[in-house]
């Protein structure tokens, strides 16, 4: 695995009979950086990720990998899938084998790897997601959060250079969110570029290096502070401004926060605030 640059240019993606879901969407997934794809439900986030993964063929525009356009031929798609993997939101629609280990082995087996290699891939993927202890369990006995992580492991076992995750934290409680984010960090250190879609603006601000907002059938991309501090953009996208930017801006106006980037979460804010009253930094 190595970080590679996935991009889409001028993507027009539509389902039949309706006007396109996306109409001229352009975005770049910078190699090795964390990209959050933000958008309201129904904005086309999932459609965009499915197109980038090769599952949907755009009506116009191209998907490129390190600048090379994706060919929607049998062979082109096979090569693309070895590099880019998508994990959909509902884990139940991805776990289709009896046991966890069997499910995770599905991809590597289809790659034609020898048994030993498949076994080590399964162990590696489950360990990266910190769910190695679940290997022998039937998937229907797992909790929702566990199933979500096993579904991610199924894609990780393909050793993708780019991993696209649709709403990986939706429905998870705070500790499961923390576990998932920690797993994503390990994946990144393992040379997978990680993209996640979400409608949680606070999470995006905290986690992402870059933010792509899906709005009005297109995509606007930029640094988290610019995108998530742009009230006009957020209103069009039916999203909210993260509380940290709202509160941070006021505290800076009160002279309590230093110039530069605003803190991205509660811990950052506490660290940046003065300890004692009356001593603005």
């Amino acid at each position: 695995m190595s970080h590679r640059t996935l991009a889409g240019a001028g993507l027009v993606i539509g389902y039949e009979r309706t006007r396109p879901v996306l109409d001229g969407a352009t975005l770049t997934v910078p190699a090795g950086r964390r990209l959050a794809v933000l958008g309201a439900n129904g904005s086309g986030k999932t459609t965009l990720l499915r197109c980038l993964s090769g599952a949907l063929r755009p009506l116009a525009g191209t998907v490129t990998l390190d600048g090379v356009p994706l060919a929607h031929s049998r062979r082109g798609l096979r090569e693309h899938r070895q590099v880019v993997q998508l994990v959909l939101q509902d884990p139940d629609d991805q776990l289709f084998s009896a046991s966890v280990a069997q499910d995770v082995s599905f991809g590597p087996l289809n790659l034609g790897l020898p048994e030993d290699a498949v076994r080590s891939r399964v162990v590696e993927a489950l360990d990266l997601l910190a769910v190695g202890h679940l290997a022998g369990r039937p998937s229907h006995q797992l909790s929702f959060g566990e199933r979500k992580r096993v579904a991610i492991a199924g894609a990780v076992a393909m050793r993708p250079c780019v991993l696209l995750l649709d709403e990986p934290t939706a429905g998870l409680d705070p500790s499961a969110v923390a576990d998932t984010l920690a797993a994503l960090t390990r994946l990144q250190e393992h040379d997978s570029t990680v993209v996640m879609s979400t409608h949680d603006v606070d999470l995006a601000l905290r986690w992402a290096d870059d933010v792509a907002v899906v709005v009005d059938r297109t995509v606007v991309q930029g640094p988290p502070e610019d995108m998530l501090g742009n009230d006009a953009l957020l209103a069009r996208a039916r999203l909210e401004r993260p509380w940290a930017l709202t509160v941070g801006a006021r505290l800076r106006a009160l002279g309590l926060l230093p110039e530069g980037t605003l803190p991205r979460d509660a811990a950052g804010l506490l660290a940046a605030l003065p300890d004692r009253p009356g001593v603005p930094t």
Partner: protein
Amino acid sequence: MHIAEGFLPPAHAIGWTVAAAPFVVHGARAVVREVRENPESTLLLGAAGAFTFVLSAIKLPSITGSSSHPTGTGAGAILFRPPVMALLGTVVLLFQALLLAHGGLTTLGANAVAFAVVGPWVGYGAYRLTRALGGGLLPGVFAGTAVADLATYVTTSLQLALAFPDPTGGLAGAVVKFLGVFGVTQIPLAIGEGLLGVLLFRALTVN
């Protein structure tokens, strides 16, 4: 393949509807009784019908290069028993006619005889026979699903032959023709459906 709307002469359409009726009514009685005893079986039976419908949306390639959809009649008969399949199969055929433009309303009776009566019963018979002869579950499932698929299409061929006897070869000639086009070509696909049945049941028993 289902016999399309309007393809059968009126007398045949009515005849097959009359032939299917006792089986479907028997199935309906069984369903009414079941639901009266366990109201929640409405949902289970509905799920069974929906599964049968969706199963036919799976595309199976054949070694000959063509591809087809499973009939689901054998798997349904083994899972839900033939009497219930007579009713569920007919509901599914009605839905296929209205949602997918497969089959028709006047040909519903003829299609029900092939897909909801003969296929399930013959397939179920092959399943029980294989089990009785000492075959395990999976050989039984293979025999049941493959034979059900084949029996369904043999029935369709016979129905068409009866409706359109050959001007020179008569009924026998027509049977040969329709079996050649709708039956023999089905053999690899029936084997395919048998394999799918085995894989389906194997996955279920592991669970």
